[in-house]
Structure formats: structure tokens, C-alpha cells
């Protein structure tokens, strides 16, 4: 009686472990499939010209997406310029100042903003920036991505700032160091790696956005010379090429998608390296 019971329990254990393993594999499988498919379809078109040349018109082979790759980096730079200071300082406010009642509302607002579809952000910035300025621009693209980054960075910054032990703050204040210096030189510095991680994750998150850029950064077939002119971006270029009827452009779109994915993967790997370091050292 007890032997069969024991075997039954063992069987259930093995069965559930197998199910859990299968589910875990299912989580990883899409990433593998995406990588496999992109490498298969895109690697043939990734060459030197792809990174150095402007797009060619239909019917002429070759050409690349140099302007779109540069454009994506410029847009991310502008976005960081807007998103990082506001996001980090907002996180500081939530963690170091702020009443719990107000904080609840700010957190709630940030969480709602994180869930706003990206196309809505695009429309908002179109109405607030593009229409008054009478033109699409790199600024508008940077602003929309920056605005999307703010709630992301604010929430992650707040969380890592709260991990800083209160003893640090108390010790600093006890030594007569003013509160602002305590925050800047003790709290922020201790949490720096976590904040950088949050910033990188937010950058990786907005790097692949297409919808908010359609009506802000707009896209550009040529190099961008002024931030008040439209600018190219990888996701936009991929979108334009993917819906075209030409095989040559489809191949370029695959290559662009592969490059974009590698870029985002590189950022994520960077984040892993940073966070591993943080957990190895005792806080």
C-alpha cells in the first residue's frame, strides 16, 4: 500500500517536472526561432555596404542603411538626454522625498503611462511638437522616445534607490553632511549600477519602436543635417521596406531587423554583465 503510494508520488513528481521543463523551453523557443529566422534571411544582406551606404532606389542593387543606423543612435541619444534626468530625479523624489499618499498617485500614473500604447505617444508628440513646429524632426522623435523612457526609468530607479540600506543615509546625516549631498554622493552612487541597468533596459525597449516615430521622426532617405529635419531610424526603414513589393528591399529589411535585434541583444548582455557584478559584491 505505502509502496504504491510512494511510486505514485514519484511519478507525479517526474511528470510535473517534465511539464515545467517543457514550459520553460516554450518560453525560450520563440527567441531561438526569431534568431534562427533572422539570421537565415538577413545574414546574406549584412555586408560592409549595409553599414556605410545610403539606401539605393528600386532596381539598383546594393546600398545600405547607414543613415538609419546613425539615426537610431542619434534618436536614442536625444531620448536619453530627456528621459534619463527626468526619470532618475523622479525616482529620487519617490524614494527620498515625497509623502506616501502623493507617491501612490505618482506610481499609479507612471504605471498607467508604461501601459500606454506607443502609437498614442506618437500622436501626442505629433500634436504638441510637430504641428506647432510645422514639420517633422529628429527632436520630435527624440522627445517621444524620451517621454516613453521617463516612467520606465523612474520606476526602476526608485526600486534600486530603496535597496540602499537606510543606515548609509543615517550615517551620512549623522556626520553633518547635508541631505542633498547624501543623496548625490552616497545614495545615488551606491545605486548607480542599478540605475544604469534601468536606463539601458529602457533604451533597449524604445530602440525597436516604430509606431511613435512614424509621425515624429518621420524617416529620411538621406543623411540628417539638422535636428529640426526629419531623421531615419532602423525600425522605420524596416517597416517601409517590408511592405514594399520588391525582393531586394525585403532582403534589406531582414538585414535591418537582424542588426536591430543584435543591437538590442548587445544592450541586454551588457545589462547582465553589469548586474552580475552587482550581486557578487556584498552591498
Amino acid at each position, binding site marked *: 500500500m505505502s509502496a504504491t503510494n510512494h511510486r505514485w508520488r514519484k511519478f507525479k513528481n517526474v511528470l510535473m517536472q517534465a511539464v515545467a521543463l517543457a514550459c520553460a523551453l516554450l518560453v525560450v523557443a520563440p527567441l531561438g526561432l526569431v534568431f534562427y529566422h533572422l539570421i537565415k534571411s538577413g545574414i546574406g544582406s549584412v555586408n560592409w555596404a549595409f553599414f*556605410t*551606404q*545610403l*539606401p*539605393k*532606389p*528600386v*532596381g539598383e542593387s546594393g546600398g545600405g542603411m*547607414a543613415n538609419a543606423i546613425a539615426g537610431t543612435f542619434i534618436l536614442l541619444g536625444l531620448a536619453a538626454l530627456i528621459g534619463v534626468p527626468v526619470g532618475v530625479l523622479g525616482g529620487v523624489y519617490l524614494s527620498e522625498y515625497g509623502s506616501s499618499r502623493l507617491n501612490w498617485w505618482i506610481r499609479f500614473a507612471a504605471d498607467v503611462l508604461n501601459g500606454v500604447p506607443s502609437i498614442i505617444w506618437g500622436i501626442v508628440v505629433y500634436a504638441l511638437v*510637430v*504641428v506647432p513646429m*510645422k*514639420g*517633422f524632426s529628429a527632436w520630435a522623435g527624440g522627445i517621444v522616445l524620451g517621454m516613453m523612457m521617463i516612467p520606465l526609468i523612474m520606476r526602476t530607479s526608485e526600486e534600486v534607490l530603496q535597496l540602499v540600506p537606510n543606515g548609509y543615509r543615517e550615517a551620512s546625516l549623522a556626520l553633518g553632511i547635508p541631505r542633498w549631498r547624501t543623496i548625490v554622493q552616497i545614495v545615488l552612487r551606491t545605486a548607480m549600477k542599478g540605475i544604469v541597468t534601468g536606463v539601458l533596459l529602457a533604451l533597449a525597449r524604445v530602440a525597436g519602436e516604430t509606431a511613435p516615430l*512614424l*509621425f515624429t521622426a*518621420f*524617416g*529620411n*532617405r*538621406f*543623411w540628417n*543635417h*539638422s535636428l529640426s*529635419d*526629419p531623421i531615419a531610424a532602423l525600425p522605420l526603414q524596416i517597416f*517601409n521596406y517590408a*511592405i*514594399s*513589393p*520588391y*525582393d531586394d528591399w525585403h532582403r534589406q529589411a531582414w538585414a535591418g531587423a537582424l542588426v536591430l535585434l543584435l543591437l538590442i541583444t548587445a544592450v541586454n548582455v551588457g545589462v547582465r554583465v553589469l548586474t552580475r557584478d552587482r550581486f557578487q559584491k556584498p552591498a
Partner: protein
Amino acid sequence: MKTKSLLIPLVALSACFLGPDLADRASAQMLINGAGATFPYPIYSKWFDEYVKVDSSVRFNYQSIGSGGGQKQILAETVDFGASDGPMSDANLAKAPRRLLHIPTVAGADVLTYNLPGNPQLKVDGPTIVDIFMGKITKWNDPRLAQQNPGVKLPDDDIIVVHRSDGSGTTFIWVDYLSSVSKEWESKVGRGTSVNWPAGLGGKGNEGVAGQVKQLPGAVGYVELAYAVQNKLPCAHVKNSAGNYVAPTLDSITEALATAKIPEDFRFSMVNPPGDKAYPIAGCTWLLVYQEQKDAAKGKKLVEFLNWAIEKGESMAESLNYAPLPASVRQRVLERIKTIKY
């Protein structure tokens, strides 16, 4: 010594990386932006690329956000020129802050594509297409289809209608044609870049419709000619108003353009024109430009480009499966471009 030997290839490498682009960057000054129709995007991008060789001090940046988007953006003046596959309605034109000109550039056609065993060459007339898209003709071996296609073995299969689910100039031309041959279609469904379809499945973009037709045996749908040619899709011959079954080709579209009635403001529909060899389901695409240009420097460059496009650019149309404007129309367009003030 060692650093020097390392430096040389490095400098050479960065030179070939940056060299051509730096030259390109230094020479370019002005950027003129436009937005609109997807259909002419390939020819426009070709023109703007070629035009760099004509005038290197200006770059034209065109983004294909769709005809509706093109009309909205030129009305909001967020772009320097717009583009649309359908002429703007009077109501929309009234919203313009200044007078907007329609500059026709090239023409294209919608084709009826299908998926039948062996893909035989089909012939259809307008009323038959209307009834297929109305959901009234539901079988491929319907007597009306069989009668027009003697010798073709039509299967006893259901017809699956596929139409565009998104707003598009391709749809505008298609339903413009169906409205012109059927009063019933005109009153029940009407014209527009997107309509309430009485039958069928939706697909997004030309590729969406073509993909569905390819995958579903017995399916029928409409796509742009350029798209059908690029993807080697079967195209039905369509009966025109002279009673001939005409294949969609560049010649039969140019013929349609030449025989279409073109009014003073160039806002015209060219479906069902009277020509003997004219393909009946064709349409023009337009650039939308303000008659009074606010920025004198940009306005001057824009006019220079428009003249070049009509005089020289038209000759590039055919290689990209667009029909160029006939000489008579070109002359009228050039006259109109002269009225642009800057």
C-alpha cells in the same frame, strides 16, 4: 614605428568609411519633405535619387504614409508637398489655408488576380466583377463567367473574395470603377479609400491581398499592376467601354490616360475611358503643392524639381511598371507648374 604601421590602415579604413558620406554631407544644404501615397513610392524614390545628380544642393525626402496621411499632412503644413492616389475632395480642399494644386505624375492600374488550378487567362466584364464583389456570383463555373471564357475549364468551387482591409488608393480606383459600371454598387457601397464591403475577407496592403489569394484556392482579389508584375500574379483581361477585353499593360494604361477627360484642376477619374485599347481600371497619382510657396528658396527648388520630373523623370516610369503621362497632358501640367509663386 609600430604605432605608425597601425595608424595607416586605420586612417585608410576610416577614410573609406567616412569619405563618400562626408562629401555627401558637406554638399547637401536643403531638405524638402513630402509624404503620402504608397503606390508611387518606388518611382518617387528613384526620381529623388536621380535628382541629386541634377541639383546636389537639395534633397527630397519622401515618406509613404498613405494617401490619406499625405492629404492631412499637407493641410497641416507639416510637409512641403503631399501625395495622393485619389484626388482630394472639395470638403478637404476647402480646409486648405491656401490654394492647393494637384500635379499628376504617373498612372497605374488595378488588376483582378485569382487562384485557380493552372491559373488560366480569364476574361471578365465590369458587371461580372461587381457581382463577384457583391457576393452574388459565388461559384467559379457560374454561367456568366463560363460564357466569357469559352475553352477555359472553370471548377465548381466557391469564389473567395479578398479585398483591402486598410484605407488605400488602390481601393479608391477599384471601387471608383465598380461604381462607374454599376448604379447598385454606387448607391449601396460607393466610393472611398475604404468602404463597407458586402462580401469577402480583408488583407492588409497589396502583399496581404496577394498572400491570401495565393494561399486560398478559388480566391480572387485586386492588387496594383506593379505589384502583380513583380510577383508574377495572374491578371484577368477586363472588358472596356468599347467592348474589347484588354490586358493591363503600360500601353493600355497610357491609352486610358490619353482618352480620359481631364478637367482644368487635374482632379479626374480615369476609370472606364472611351479608348478602344484602354484598360478600364486605371488611376492617376498626384503631388499636392501649394500655389503660393511660403519659403521662397524651397519653393524655387520644388518648382525646378517638378519641371524636371515631368520633362525627364517621366521616361523612368515604364521600367518601374508605371504609365507615364501622355505628351499632351504633360504640356498642360507644365503650364500649371508655371503658376506656382514663390
